[in-house]
């Protein structure tokens, strides 16, 4: 069952035409986690979206790993602020009608 939730790193890299060392370096700086089973590296499906996003940053936008790490932090902050904004707007609806 667990294997169904994992994607082999080499298959991912082959599909995206990227070097395996790129994924390894992402692991080293803590941007993704890799699971190793019987000496084969896997990425959890839940991380696939994040990894694809990083691939786009690196290969399509020419952003280096340090930049991606910084962007990652900022995107997390944006998400937290957007969630907080939603919460506050809903709280404001207690007192007035807003668009």
């Amino acid at each position: 069952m667990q294997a169904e939730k994992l994607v082999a790193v080499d298959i991912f890299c082959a599909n995206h035409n990227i070097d395996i060392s790129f994924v390894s370096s992402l692991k080293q700086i803590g941007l993704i986690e890799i699971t190793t089973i019987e000496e084969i590296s896997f990425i959890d499906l839940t991380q696939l979206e994040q990894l694809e996003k990083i691939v786009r940053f690196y290969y399509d936008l020419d952003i280096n790993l340090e930049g991606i790490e910084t962007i990652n932090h900022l995107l997390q902050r944006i998400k937290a602020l957007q969630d907080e904004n939603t919460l506050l707007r809903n709280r404001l609806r207690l007192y007035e009608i807003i668009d």
Partner: protein
Amino acid sequence: MNFVDYYKLLGIDKSATTKDIKSAYRKLARKYHPDLNPNDKNAKRNFQQINEANEVLSDPVKRKKYDQYGKDWEHSEQFEKQRQSQGQQTRSNSAGFSGAQSGEDFSDFFEAMFGGATGAGRNRQIKYRGEDFNAELHLDLIDAYKTQKQTLTVNGKKIRITIPAGIENGQTIKIAGHGGPGINGGPAGDLFITFSIANHSLFKRLGDNLYASIDLDLYTSVLGGDITIDTLDGKVKLKVKPETQNGTKIKLKDKGFPVYKNEGHYGDLYITYTVKIPTNLTEQQRKLFIKLSEL
């Protein structure tokens, strides 16, 4: 349909080299890429536009055609026919980022010039994940109180979704695989549905808790008694304590909103009593109040 100045879009002049175009595109792509601008429709639209500009200007054949016929793009078809008749047919295999929306000037212009959808101009021949779709679904608070199934039509396809009870206004849920189709055999994108929940009920909602104001007549507030109030779960009988003050708040445990994805768990309902002073008193009532005040 308006002429679209791709050079202006990328902020370059007509003498720009391939390197200049790539550099200008990347600079703008870093600014407007949807991954860097979550939930920003303007950024997404700008990204589609610069993608389209890059698609044309980074391809020597398309750029030549654009430079030659750009402002008189209507003649491009004639140009193509002429080329085809000369056995020099070139076929564009542009099928990259599927961001362009049909019906917009940019895509119409692009299609009129080159046919087909825009591409991202990526160099890697990879499997692209399809575009994520965003949609807004309007519900009433009463609808959000119970888990329900709805059928939505997304790009002509009907999909059945389950909306868990307790969904929050402004909350977004992801329906995996129901976005745009993948490219080169890549996986489909996802569908993101943001809920807009209108509240026409007597209750105000904050998270899982509900708030309501209930009018209480003077006699019940002074002497106490039983009242029946409406909740989203039906009618509830309440015992009002004697000498209940205006503005008194009471909590009805588990009579609030369902906790999202936590079946059987509910927030609380807070009731605030508003004591209503009687008006249009009869002479007899007035005398009795006077008598009461003199006691």
